[in-house]
């Protein structure tokens, strides 16, 4: 979907974005288990994600949300169960891991931009070194994505010269430059000042409306209502409830979900 900045921004967080989910599965997680030492951090997770589906994951701190999405690109290794992404099974095989990482972009809470490289060079790394795109072409693509996150004018600056919101948008552009099929977000707005949250969410909403498959750990419930096809609630390393946002927010089935929603929606 094409959009033109201003009118879209105003509506972004109120009008639900049309679902782009197909019935073609792109992520399959079967009986995923992970331990940190003796601590059972992920307990029998089952999750199937369709191409183009937007999933929001929420839950109390320490419930294993980050660990779950970090398992999906093997930043964390799982010990039992199966993860298949775009037909490739994630195991200790470095070839598979690298193949999957090429298809999966990730945005971190702390941005994690490379401070010694300019914004443009941050965006060029993966296309040039991983995808072997000719530099000229890669620059064009990087500029395209920087425009899409609305900071093309910062291309030659260094990350340290940008505000938090700008840095996070660069991080999104950097991940998009890989032209991934799936985007993972781990609390992308939690480290931001309130004034900057919206500019990042706007970019994410725009991305969602373009048909990207997205998994977002976030507590921005407005965002969840607007873009999510499914909201997943995690607690104690398990998926407690997964439902479309309308059901999830108005009539959650589990009492644990209700408690959680009461707590975060109270104020």
């Amino acid at each position, binding site marked *: 979907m094409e959009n033109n900045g201003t009118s879209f921004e105003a509506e972004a967080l109120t009008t639900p974005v049309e679902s782009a989910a197909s019935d073609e599965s792109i992520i399959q997680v079967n009986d995923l288990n992970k331990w940190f030492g003796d601590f059972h951090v992920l307990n029998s997770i089952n999750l199937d994600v369709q191409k183009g589906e937007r999933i929001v994951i929420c839950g109390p701190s320490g419930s294993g949300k980050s660990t779950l999405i970090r398992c999906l690109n093997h930043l964390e290794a799982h010990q039992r169960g199966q993860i298949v992404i775009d037909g490739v099974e994630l195991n200790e095989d470095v070839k598979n891991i690298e193949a999957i990482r090429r298809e999966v972009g990730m945005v971190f809470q702390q941005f994690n931009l*490379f*401070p*010694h490289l300019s914004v443009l060079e941050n965006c060029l*790394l*993966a296309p040039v070194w991983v995808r072997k795109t000719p530099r000229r072409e890669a620059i064009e693509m990087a500029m395209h994505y920087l425009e899409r996150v609305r900071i093309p004018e910062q291309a030659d600056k260094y990350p*340290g*010269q940008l505000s938090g919101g700008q840095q996070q948008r660069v991080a999104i552009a950097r991940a998009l430059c890989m032209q991934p099929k799936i985007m993972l977000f781990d609390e992308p707005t939690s480290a931001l000042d309130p004034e900057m949250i919206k500019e990042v969410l706007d970019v994410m909403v725009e991305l969602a409306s373009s048909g990207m498959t997205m998994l977002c750990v976030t507590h921005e419930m407005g965002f969840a209502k607007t873009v999510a096809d499914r909201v997943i609630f995690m607690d104690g390393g398990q998926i407690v409830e997964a439902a479309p946002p309308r059901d999830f927010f108005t009539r959650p089935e589990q009492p644990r979900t209700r408690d959680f929603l009461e707590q975060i929606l109270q104020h």
Partner: protein
Amino acid sequence: MATHQPLPNQPAPVTQRGVIRWLRANLFSSWINGLVTLVVGYYLLTMLIPLIDWAFIGAVFTGDGVDACRPGKACWIFVEERFGFFMYGFYPEALRWRPTLAFALFALAVVPPFLPLPGRLRRSVAIFGLTGLPVGGYILIAGGVFGLESVDTSQWGGLMLTLILAYVGIIAALPIGVALALGRRSEMPVIRGICVIFIEFWRAVPLITILFMASVMLPLFLPEGVTFDKLMRALIGITLFQAAYMAEVVRGGLQAIPKGQYEAAEALGLGYWRRMRLIILPQALKIVVPGIANTVISLFKDTTLVLIIGLFDLLGAVKSTLSDPAWNNVMAEGYLFVAFCFWVFCFGMSRYSHRIEKQLDTDHRQ
């Protein structure tokens, strides 16, 4: 309620300056500080004035032989007459242009960080300094090919030898040190174990012992008839010793890089070597520039230890002339000259590392 009106920005207050103000703040801030300043100042003057008189005012700089010198004043003619020997040792006089040319090239390769050159040119000069220069420099100084007369390493000496020892020690030790540091942080236990043992062994042994072992013990283990150049043996010893120190400095830098940098690089699909080369090492090495400069300066001074295995570096060359009966008692002049040379190079390296730090500083924090 009145609407909020933003106030205009005001200029920052001017900091008070001036010599008197500085003196009062730094030297005479209280009566006791003033007293200390006066007492220390008095003793400094009583020591400095005779020293300056000895070294400069009353000293003899030009003239012919020992007779031109004045008793009780510095006799710099000695240094002047032996200057060639101090710089080159026994290197044949007619061929001394060769090491001179090699060092001129070296100076050229060192200068670029001070020039406003485009990054790519600067990088190629740096690569030349690390690869082409050592090879070219060696050919120039050692000769034996391209019609250059061969000069045996036993004839190398003086400041030239000091610089060669330090330069090779640094250039060769840096990559080995980086490899060791990466190995020590490797997830593979065998590699990690080997690196730990290597580093801890070389760091635990004094350089002087290593030099002794290299010159006395190594030949015992070599098969009959195989001789190994004495300088080469010293260089290998110095390099491995220096590499162990360098490894620990670099490891400090690697540890200072936040975990998120490693993870972001992984998430982009970069393989191990690319992650290290493109993301981690550039940042880690930048952090440890002061640490590297520190070990480099310390190595530069430690090269004087080769004296004990019979190599004539700057200190060795100067020392060997001090007992010359033709010159009565030029000990102070000789050692002072050595100290001055070392100071010039070490201070230069210190400034150079500061310069590089600035050059690499892109981490502009707001």
